[in-house]
């Protein structure tokens, strides 16, 4: 393989680096730790450098996020293996009672919302984060997560349902059943 030269560097900085926020955001929501997300995002970016010559152009964000996602799961496999199997994370579980009528949101609500999202299984978190925070299309989500386009809708449906239940405080029983 040819060396990553300064021409590649310029291309990389123009095409890929603008998506660093997206990379970090996804890594954070899969790993739920800023420090781990920093480490894995950096590793993923450098891995992306090595693969960069194979990148034929097109959707750089999806391409990068796919690498980030794979790096996250590899990292989880190595460091927090148990987390991958569980449908529901006891440690992160919180009872949340926000009245659905009110659209005003306090700092406290924000914290609880964050915790609710963190409570979801990683496969649910990632589709929600990609769709709601990153604004990805189904096609992009499918490309990033390697699931068929047809499955994206049902994954989102289940993830949203689960999040809704977490937010109304009835998530525990549902989560134990599902996934």
């Amino acid at each position: 393989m040819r060396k990553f030269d300064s021409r590649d560097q310029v291309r990389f900085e123009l095409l890929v680096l603008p998506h660093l926020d997206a990379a970090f955001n996804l890594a954070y929501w899969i790993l739920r730790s800023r420090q781990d997300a920093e480490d894995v995002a950096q590793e993923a970016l450098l891995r992306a450098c090595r693969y960069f010559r194979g990148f034929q152009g097109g959707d750089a964000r999806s391409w990068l996020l796919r690498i980030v996602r794979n790096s996250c799961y590899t990292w989880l496999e190595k460091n927090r293996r148990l987390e991958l199997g569980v449908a529901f994370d006891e440690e992160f579980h919180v009872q949340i009672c926000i009245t659905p009528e009110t659209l005003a949101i306090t700092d406290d609500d924000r914290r609880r919302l964050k915790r609710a999202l963190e409570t979801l299984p990683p496969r649910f978190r990632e589709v929600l984060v990609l769709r709601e925070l990153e604004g990805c299309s189904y096609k992009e989500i499918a490309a990033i997560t390697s699931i068929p386009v047809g499955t994206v809708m049902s994954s989102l449906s289940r993830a949203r349902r689960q999040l809704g239940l977490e937010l109304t405080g009835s998530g525990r029983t549902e989560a134990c059943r599902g996934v």
Partner: protein
Amino acid sequence: MGCRLANALLHGYFDGELSKVRAHEYELHLQHCVDCAVALVEQQLLRHRLQLGELYQPAPAALRQKIRGRLRSLSSVSAGSQPLLWQWLAAAAALLLLALAVSRVSPELRSREYQAELAGEIVEMHRHSLVPGQTTAIASDNEQIVRQWFDDRLKFALPVRNFADEGFALQGGRLDDIEGRAVAALVYMGSGHLINVFMWPTKEPDRSPHSGSLGGYQWVYWRKHKVEFCVVSDAAPGDLEHLHRLIAE
């Protein structure tokens, strides 16, 4: 369309991923079904709350810096990099000053014409070395990598250090050939200014620093342990003094 199918299509509709025909069918169903309409509103509430939740986690600035640094060290400055005009001007001015410094230490007084000729020659050589593919340069903030790079090419040892913590981030190094002798150039970035530290071996004894300025550029020159140093930049004189102290200590 029944509720069962509508329920299955809810998220596709909500996300704007249904075909026009499907979306229309779904909307027709909503007109007759309060439950499905409520389910759709619930999704909108959920999305609204997620948007208000400030959940997006942007990358820390330090991470961006770190990755940029790693990228720079991965690629070499040589191929395809086009130096900015001001960088070239800074380098040219730096080399002119270097030529002056060289002439200063030499015992015989050089004529003004000769100095101009030498400076022109140096600048021309330097310019030539900036042509893509013609330069031998290393871009890295890693002391060891830069030191090794120079060790492979020079007969004298260089004090290569990154003073990023003190505000002078090592950018890399370069090798120039002036009048048949090798001159090493370390490049730093301090307060947004490019700083060149030129070094070449000498047999002369140590000499305390003296500084000056020319055309808006500052320089500090000294000799230590059989190496001559010349720091040049358009940075503030205080910054160069600071860098001099860091290098010389």
